[in-house]
């Protein structure tokens, strides 16, 4: 049975029709009225607010499906990238879609997820986007009183979503149980619903975790599997739980209770697998599983097919855990992913390298990628071994001081001395030529002043 394609239940049982969205009648009425009279509305955008899992995004998706809008979705994490906003903004400003005359809804999910100073530009971009958009823009947020969202007050209709009641959640869980042919105890469903505190999404996830591991849902099992959700697990707890999992569902559950999202989780595993697993065969199996997870992740990006996400998670969690023939309860010193740390530290260097690659790519009519792999290595050889010649190239290509520093490394001072010398010589030569052009003037003095080349010991580099 487990061989059959698995789509996470939260996706599989997403509301398809407006009526499937439970108990948000007032919000439905308001949003439908607003969208139907668009663009003849007081406020061009709408902001749906309410607790997590209350159906905000689901309602928008159902409306789009039922009223045949093309839905363009963007998540908080995308707002950080100016290029993405630009892309969406271009789409938003266009009147008709390339796919015929369907109109669009632009959905910006979790706008309160924008963070502090780093995303300062994000909200501005959203305000601008709403201004130029020729299609309704709908946003979602948890907390409408968040001071960050103040600029939206005047341009967006605020629509409230109520927290779901326990009975609403139970109703949906029951529907899923019968669709999945699951034996479900009413008590168990109530327990799950109560624990979810009105968050339908987390309730469905819990139901799935229980059903998948055991095949039936009883109160007893629910209580053992679902630990009180008083807090999410930190990365260290998550990793320990995964590595000591005996069953696939334990590893998957560990991931679902983690603070880490899937991308972070993969990074953490990538860093820490070798600290936990030292047997060569198991180590390879663990990395092979991670590698396959990362392949699925890449396919999601390329194809836009988010249904593949469940495979990413299967391989990253259960795949890694079960690469061990016997689960280990060993203690290991875990590390923060080096990659994330270094990426931040080396950002400047990477940017500089891109700049150099760009400069040379334009110069020799090729891509930055090819420059980095095929040209920079040879340029480095020149800069580290022949500072005099390197200086000429630096001048010929108009390199900045920083670029020279990057290429020359420890030879920077020597190269830079020659750069100064040659650029002075160039100036002198220009002056000399100008003077020579006017025969009335006396013999050029410039020649006498010509500086001597830097120490001849430097020249020995050429001979090396």
């Amino acid at each position, binding site marked *: 049975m487990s061989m059959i394609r698995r789509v996470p239940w939260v996706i599989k049982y997403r509301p398809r029709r407006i009526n499937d969205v439970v108990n948000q009648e007032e919000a439905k009425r308001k949003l439908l009225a607003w969208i139907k009279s668009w663009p003849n509305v007081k406020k061009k955008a709408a902001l749906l607010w309410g607790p997590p899992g209350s159906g905000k995004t689901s309602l928008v998706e159902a409306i789009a499906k039922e009223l045949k809008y093309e839905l363009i979705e963007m998540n908080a994490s995308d707002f950080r990238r100016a*290029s993405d906003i630009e892309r969406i903004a271009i789409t938003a400003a266009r009147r008709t879609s390339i796919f015929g005359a369907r109109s669009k809804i632009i959905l910006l999910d979790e706008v309160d997820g924008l963070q502090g100073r780093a995303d300062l530009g994000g909200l501005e971009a959203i305000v601008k986007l709403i201004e130029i958009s020729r299609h309704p823009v709908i946003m979602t947020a948890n907390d409408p009183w968040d001071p960050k969202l103040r600029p939206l007050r005047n341009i967006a209709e605020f629509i409230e979503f109520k927290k779901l009641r326990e009975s609403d959640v139970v109703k949906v869980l029951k529907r899923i149980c019968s669709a999945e042919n699951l034996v479900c105890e009413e008590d168990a469903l109530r327990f799950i619903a109560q624990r979810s505190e009105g968050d339908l999404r987390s309730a469905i996830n819990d139901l799935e975790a229980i059903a998948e591991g055991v095949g039936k849902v009883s109160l007893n099992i629910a209580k053992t599997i679902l630990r009180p959700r008083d807090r999410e697990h930190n990365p260290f707890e998550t990793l320990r739980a995964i590595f000591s999992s005996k069953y696939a569902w334990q590893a998957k559950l560990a991931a679902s209770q983690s603070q880490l999202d899937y991308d972070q989780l993969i990074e953490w595993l990538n860093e820490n697998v070798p600290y936990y697993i030292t047997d060569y065969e198991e180590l390879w199996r663990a990395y092979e599983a991670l590698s396959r997870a990362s392949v699925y992740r890449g396919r999601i990006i390329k194809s836009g097919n988010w249904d593949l996400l469940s495979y990413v998670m299967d391989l990253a969690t259960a795949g890694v855990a079960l690469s061990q023939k016997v689960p280990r309860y060993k203690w290991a010193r875990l590390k923060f992913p080096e990659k994330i740390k270094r990426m931040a530290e080396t950002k400047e260097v990477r940017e500089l390298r891109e700049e150099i690659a760009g400069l040379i790519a334009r110069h020799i009519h090729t891509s930055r990628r090819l420059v980095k792999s095929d040209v920079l290595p040879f340029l480095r*050889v020149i800069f580290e071994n022949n500072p005099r010649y390197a200086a000429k190239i630096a001048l010929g290509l108009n390199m900045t001081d920083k670029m020279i520093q990057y290429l020359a490394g420890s030879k920077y001072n020597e190269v830079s001395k020659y750069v100064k010398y040659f650029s002075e010589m160039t100036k002198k030569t220009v002056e000399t030529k100008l003077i020579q052009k006017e025969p009335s003037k006396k013999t050029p003095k410039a020649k006498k002043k010509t500086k001597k080349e830097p120490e001849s010991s430097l020249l020995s580099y050429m001979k090396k």
Partner: protein
Amino acid sequence: MSVSEAFAEILWAEKYRPKSLKEIVNQEEIVRRLQRFVEEKNMPHLLFAGPPGTGKTTAALALAHDLYGEDWRRYVLELNASDERGIDVIRTKVKEFARSRVPGIIPFKIILLDEADNMTPDAQQALRRLMEMYVETTRFILVANYPSKIIEPIQSRCAVFRFIPLRREDVISRLKWIANNEKVEYEEEALEVIYELSEGDMRRAINILQAAAALGKVTISTVYKVVGLAHPKEVREMIQLALRGKFIESREKLRKLMIEYGLSGVDVVKQIHREIFSADLKIPEELRVLIADYAGEIQYRLVEGADDEIQLNAFLARLALLGKKFIGA
């Protein structure tokens, strides 16, 4: 000529790039056909296909030069598919460029799109529409290593030119000519070695020549020295550490390669591939094949869009396992 000439130098790959079609000594058949376009002052969309360093970009720039004269840069938009961020950026730039005026006698401008085979099929579809939309005022020259990666509808709209690897004597005589021009001392055999190492890629050959010349007389040993310096020694060290079962240390080397040298995952795999078959790496012959097989798999996964470091870690873990089996770490 600029006065600063003597005190400034550029990359020889550019300095000695033929400016006009008649300066291109090889690819005679292609040159002849391109010259016809110049005479007729008209041309279809073109697709230049062939291995790196065989003169595709050179032919395109020379064609533009011969069509428009010294001023050619004004009428050519150069784009590189692997550097532009997606088809939207390309679309915007093409639109902008197509709007501006066309030169007097020649009724079109040229858009040179390099590494076009790096575009996804979807992006190529969009490109196809662009080619149709602006055909009145622009002609596209697409440059690609693998023509089979260009979708059929584009191929059928282009005159396809296949560039073949340069002949040994063509590469060597060009290197000689450059060396003489630069008054560089050289040994004949050293130029042969450069040809071998560059696998018929002219740009690579010239890069090696320029770097070797910077070290002094171009001899076999300076050529090997340059190529050795240019290829980070960490690649071999990384392989050896992994084979000895020192996974964490070899991962350190990998990170150094990617972070300090800025190599992409694919770059690293390619260098690994070169190392595996080098006689300096003393491992059982059968092991070379097994490693190559997995390296190929990893490269494929990388091209599919998987994360660089994770894939290479899987590779290193595999090496550790193989090392234990074959060498007994």
